[in-house]
């Protein structure tokens, strides 16, 4: 019947599932933050690439490395920026896949939590009647 042990066990189960859910939600939030940072960097790098493409071949390009302005070859600068853009795009795709997976997990956890809650309610209603 509705023994206190069964109720306690359900409650523990509920707590565990709720904790899991909140951890997944925190992971999703962190993912969003990292995603935002990468998106901003991608935008900036694309602007830089556009500017570099407008330059004449013999234009002087300098890169700020720490406190030092170093003269760079236009071709090299182009290559560097393109590589960076590729890297960031790949990272964003990876993050996308991860967040989709997390969201699926979140939904299934939510359902699981709901089911446990419903069982507890049914159990307690049964207890009340008894």
């Amino acid at each position, binding site marked *: 019947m509705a023994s206190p042990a069964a109720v306690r066990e359900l409650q523990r189960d509920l707590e565990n599932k709720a904790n899991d859910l909140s951890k997944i939600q925190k992971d999703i939030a962190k993912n969003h933050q990292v995603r935002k940072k990468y998106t901003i960097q991608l935008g900036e790098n694309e602007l830089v690439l556009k*500017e*570099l493409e407008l330059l004449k071949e013999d*234009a002087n390009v300098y*890169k*700020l490395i720490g406190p030092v302005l170093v003269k*760079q070859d236009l071709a090299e600068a182009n290559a560097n*920026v393109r590589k960076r853009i590729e890297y960031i795009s790949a990272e964003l795709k990876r993050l996308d896949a991860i967040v989709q997976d997390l969201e699926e997990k979140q939904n299934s956890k939510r359902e699981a939590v709901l089911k446990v809650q419903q069982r507890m309610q049914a159990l307690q209603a049964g207890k009340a009647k008894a």
Partner: protein
Amino acid sequence: MASSKGPASPAVRVAEMEKMSVEQLKAVKEQTDLEVNLLQDSLNNIRTATTRLDLASVALHDLSLRPQGKKMLVPLTASLYVPGTLDDSEKVLVDIGTGYFVEKTTVEGKDYCERKIHLLKSNYDQLLELASKKKTVADEAGAVLQAKVKQLAPQT
């Protein structure tokens, strides 16, 4: 929650809101208000950036008018200036982002500023449109919410 209100016309939106409970409606209004605030912040940032670019453009123009060899004071820190002479006012270093600097002439530099200002302006216009649409939704939510609260309250 319902985020994009793209295809829904205002009448449809209000009808949807009427169906919601006071709690849900309050949540929707708060969410939309938050979004409006974020958009306003972005708009302000764009305005600041545009002003700075404008100042840069004006400074460039001023610089191009100065003769070579002119005596000037060079800022080393915020409170320390050192006397110096203007070397070549034709070439300037432009910061194009991610740590890259490009040597340009003052004319090209001004052109760069103009291009950036145009880009910012078009972003600003897009954001402004989005912000006013969100504000409309927030206002609608507020109006429906008030009506509902009044409906529930006049048990006098």
